[in-house]
């Protein structure tokens, strides 16, 4: 009997392959995600390991408020340069070297910053000590920068942008850009560091342009031979100021890797979710394809029964077949994932996220998870069809055109579908409307509700297929003549099959609609919020609009003729009420450029807090506020105002302090936004004048209100497009579902197609008939999916407290057209098969 199952599989290669495709794609996504994120993690880990390989211990800045201690602006404070000498003179220290660091962008020949993703690193180091083994930066060619106008850049930038020793290049750190002569080409570690650029200056220059005079950020320590690591650490720890810490090199490498793996883990979960969706859709496709093939094999199962096969043997043979298909498809998917990982990486690079990579990591976990998940999903999807196969009575062997008996559960079908729908809707309503639950609980409820909803709609769909097909098939029936009319009838004659096929597409379409609805709501809300707030003529942000930029650019605008107001929003972190939060800084001129909704009794100036924050901590105008900043300093301010921030996105955090206080507390203050008011408003002449003033700040960008709006929305658009691309995978899976159904239907209707040809239908008409049926199926998927998507979008929007519900009609029309095109694409292969049928053979087909 096992042989029968195996041979059956071989005998139906096409059908087996069609079934497998659904799993191959989903598993490729799972395996590709693991391969990509493992490779990125290995890249980071390799990078940090080589960075610290010559050191025994590493001293770094320590934020007094905890959290990130990378050398990010406003996070870890730097320490005094003199610490290096003290470390060197410790009895057990053989040698020590240090550097100062700050995010630094290189400026391309076009005068724009090279920020293709990953940003840029900047270092200042002592050229005399630069060739020490302790220095993680290694010279590839040329020499180390020794003077204020010299720089060394990384190999990748040198290669890609064609800069070599002797050329000049611009660089911008925490201030205006300058031009430097390239003296050397360097590399950091051996692994690729993605799209990150590196700029190296001599120590004094670095300290100057990073605004860290007399400071260092990292010290690499080498112990004398024979010194125990713990002893070295203790010794170093003894002389450290409060704002510095020491770790063993291995611990530091692990720590840095862990910092980045949080990020890669998010990417991993994000991508796996899409793999999961594709597999969910795939399970629909597999269940449907198997149901059809099993219905077509009714006589075969009946014959086996007459030959003495038990129900159990029939069940086993079907399940074995499914297991094999699932396993083989998983193997193919596993390896396809290697290719997909490269594609995903390209995708991320295209969306501006370029990450370090090592050589491809193909972990055992990837193999195990891919094979187990793929096989299990196939197995689960095959259970229902397999059980139905056991319902075949032996007498079907002697009946012509015997049909698969309905499942024993069929009569509970409607009540079951209604109960699950009710359950799904209850979960969704709880998630969408119950304000007392936490956002996380609500999103989990919505997530679970969505899955069950898809399932129950698929159960109910057979009952609405006929009316839907009647309506949606009308254009085809009108335009397509007899082929169109027959196609509509065909779509209606096996409602369960059409419904299952359309349901797979429904899922993908519902999800893209949710995304579209949310994005439209977000944009709409954001736009109205910008319109309401924006009183300025111009906004100044970093090039990409959301990374904070040095305060120099805003200062450069102050003296420009005609400029009335330049007011900025600073961003940083602080600890308040025992919690680390983001805070902002601004000045008293802000109300002139941004309309702020003040709670009565407020003085219209910082320090101010948001209404919700004030309520939560029982604050009012006049309340004292104590903030701890990363340097360890404690700030005492008195609240002067309370604001009611707009829902669509406020430029301010919950707590906003005066810029004068902010600049005193943060070593390298940065602006999130600056807003500018000019005589005569936004005019081309004013824009040109401001642009000119910003020539030495290539990382900053002056924008009018509408440009600002568009720029800020770019982030939403990028995310939106990324989601569309990733969701398209599950739509492709459902397209294969349509292909499967049609191909199997053509098999099944061979004799009928022969008859139609015999009575005068042309090949073209046969092909058209299949195409029309495919389009009707796809449209049913759209008719089910898009309304569900709109409803879910409204609910999710409500749950994440973003109640700007907007239906993006234009996008929805595009989705419907896409569904039609998808239907046409899916029909290509089946229509060709149907058109190629030999009339005589088809009539004799049994």
């Amino acid at each position, binding site marked *: *009997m096992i*042989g029968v199952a195996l041979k059956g599989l071989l005998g139906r290669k096409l059908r087996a392959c069609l079934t497998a495709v659904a799993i191959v794609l989903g598993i490729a996504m799972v395996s590709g995600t693991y391969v990509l994120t493992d490779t990125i993690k290995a890249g980071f880990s390799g990078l940090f390991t080589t960075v610290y390989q010559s050191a025994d211990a590493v001293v770094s800045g320590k934020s007094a408020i905890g959290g990130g201690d990378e050398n990010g602006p406003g996070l870890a404070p730097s320490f005094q340069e003199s610490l290096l000498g003290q470390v060197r003179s410790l009895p057990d220290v053989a040698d020590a070297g240090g550097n100062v660091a700050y995010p630094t962008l290189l400026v391309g020949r076009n005068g724009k910053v090279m920020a293709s993703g990953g940003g840029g690193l900047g270092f200042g180091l002592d050229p005399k000590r630069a060739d020490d083994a302790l220095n993680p930066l290694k010279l590839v060619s040329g020499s180390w920068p020794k003077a204020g106008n010299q720089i060394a850049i990384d190999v990748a930038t040198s290669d890609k942008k064609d800069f070599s020793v002797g050329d000049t290049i611009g660089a911008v750190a925490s201030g205006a850009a300058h031009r430097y002569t390239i003296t050397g080409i360097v590399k950091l570690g051996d692994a690729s560091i993605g799209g990150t650029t590196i700029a190296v200056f001599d120590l004094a220059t670095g300290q100057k342009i990073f605004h860290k005079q007399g400071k260092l950020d990292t010290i690499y320590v080498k112990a004398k031979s024979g010194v125990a690591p713990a002893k070295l650490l203790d010794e170093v720890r003894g002389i450290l100021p409060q704002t510095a810490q020491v770790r063993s090199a291995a611990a530091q490498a692990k720590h840095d890797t862990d910092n980045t793996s949080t990020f890669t883990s998010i990417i991993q979960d994000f991508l796996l979710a899409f793999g999961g969706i594709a597999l969910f859709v795939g399970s629909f496709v597999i269940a449907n394809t198997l149901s059809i093939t099993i219905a077509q094999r009714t006589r075969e199962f009946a014959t*086996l*029964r*007459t*030959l*003495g096969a038990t129900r159990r043997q029939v069940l086993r043979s079907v399940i074995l077949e499914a297991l094999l298909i699932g396993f083989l498809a998983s193997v193919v998917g596993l390896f396809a994932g290697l290719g997909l990982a490269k594609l995903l990486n390209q995708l991320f690079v295209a969306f501006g996220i370029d990450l370090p990579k090592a050589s491809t990591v193909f972990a055992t976990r990837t193999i195990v998870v891919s094979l187990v998940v793929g096989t299990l999903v196939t197995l689960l999807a095959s259970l229902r069809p397999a059980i139905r196969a056991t319902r075949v009575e032996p*007498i079907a*062997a002697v009946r012509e055109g015997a049909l698969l008996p309905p499942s024993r559960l069929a009569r509970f079908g409607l009540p079951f579908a209604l109960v699950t729908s009710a359950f799904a809707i209850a979960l969704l309503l709880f998630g969408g409307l119950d304000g007392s639950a936490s956002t996380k609980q609500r999103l989990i409820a919505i997530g679970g509700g969505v899955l069950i909803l898809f399932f129950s709609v698929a159960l109910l769909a057979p009952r609405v297929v006929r009316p839907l097909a009647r309506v949606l098939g009308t254009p085809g029936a009108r335009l397509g003549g007899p082929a169109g009319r027959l196609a509509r009838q065909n779509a209606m004659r096996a409602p369960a099959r059409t419904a299952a096929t359309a349901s797979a597409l429904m899922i993908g379409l519902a999800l893209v609609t949710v995304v579209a609805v949310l994005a439209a709501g977000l944009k709409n809300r954001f736009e109205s919020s910008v319109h309401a707030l924006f009183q300025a003529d111009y906004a100044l942000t970093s090039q990409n609009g959301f990374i904070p930029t040095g305060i120099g650019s805003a200062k450069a605008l102050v003296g420009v003729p005609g400029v009335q107001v330049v007011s900025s929003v600073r961003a940083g972190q602080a600890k308040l009420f025992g919690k680390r939060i983001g805070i902002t800084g601004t000045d008293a001129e802000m109300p002139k450029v941004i309309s702020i909704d003040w709670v009565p009794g407020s003085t219209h100036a910082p320090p101010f807090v948001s209404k919700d924050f004030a309520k939560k901590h029982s604050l009012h105008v006049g309340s004292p506020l104590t903030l701890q900043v990363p340097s360890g300093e404690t700030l005492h301010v008195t609240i002067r105002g309370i604001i009611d921030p707009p829902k669509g996105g406020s430029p301010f955090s919950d707590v906003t302090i005066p810029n004068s206080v902010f600049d005193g507390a943060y070593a390298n203050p940065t602006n999130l936004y600056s807003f500018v008011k000019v005589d005569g408003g936004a005019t081309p002449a004013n824009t040109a004048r401001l642009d000119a003033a910003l020539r030495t700040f290539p990382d900053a960008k002056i924008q009018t209100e509408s440009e600002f709006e568009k720029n800020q929305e770019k982030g939403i658009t990028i995310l939106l497009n990324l989601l569309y691309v990733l969701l398209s995978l599950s739509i492709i899976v459902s397209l294969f579902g349509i292909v499967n159904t049609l191909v199997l239907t053509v098999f099944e209707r061979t004799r009928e197609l022969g008859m139609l040809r015999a009575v005068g239908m042309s090949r073209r008409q046969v092909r058209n008939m299949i195409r029309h049926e495919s389009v009707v199926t796809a449209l049913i998927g759209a008719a089910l999916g898009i309304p569900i998507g709109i409803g879910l979008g409204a609910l999710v929007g409500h749950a994440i407290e973003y109640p700007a519900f907007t239906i993006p009609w234009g996008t929805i029309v595009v989705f419907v057209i896409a569904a039609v095109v998808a239907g046409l694409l899916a029909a290509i292969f089946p229509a060709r098969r149907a058109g190629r049928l030999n009339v005589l053979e088809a009539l004799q087909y049994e």
Partner: protein
Amino acid sequence: MAVVEEGAPAPAQRGTVVRAQELTRRYGEGATAVEALRGVSLDVGAGELVAVMGPSGSGKSTLMHILAGLDKPTTGTVEIAGQEITTLDDRALTLLRRKHIGFVFQFFNLLPMLTAEENVLLPLSISGQRPERRFFDELLERTGLGDRRTHRPSELSGGQQQRVAIARSLVTRPTILFADEPTGNLDSKTGGEILELLRESVDAYGQTTVMVTHEARAAAIADRVLFIGDGLIVRELREATPQQVLDVMAGLDS
């Protein structure tokens, strides 16, 4: 040749392997109910080839389905090898099929992906048995499949496919073989060869066989022909010629 009185069960000769008593079968309910069988009793003796004839709609197929345990009678009993089968559950029926019943179908019902030899061996592999090599080889020779062992059904003619089906039904040496219109899908020459093969298997192996047919020529190879009309056995002939069968049939149709 001897004509036996209508309706009277034949005396069991060499031991009865199939015995049916007062079988009725009603399909549907109420006014639309159809009485396919209205009280049929018969015995089939060991080594006997019995043909069941009748016009379409006479109930002959229903009779065979019930005798073979594929369908259940509304009333009445069927015994195969001394076992009452109408009350058996699915599991017991399956075991009964493995041990006692062979089938030959009108449309052959071979598994397309298996070779001729694999198709023949299928009933054994289903019940987890190994073939007796000598018997198996002889069976393939006798059914004329010796040089077709590795061919798949699609590579065989209709007659050859039916030979595979017959070999498949004989491989377990069933107590009783049911043949459902075995020549119904074959041309007359091939059909004749298949009938010869069936007759041969009865003679060579003493294979008890019940064959449903509407062909006089097919019925003529039987030891006994039962004529069914309107749900009842209306005539019975022993070792009839095709002409005698046709005469009876003509009488039934009128």
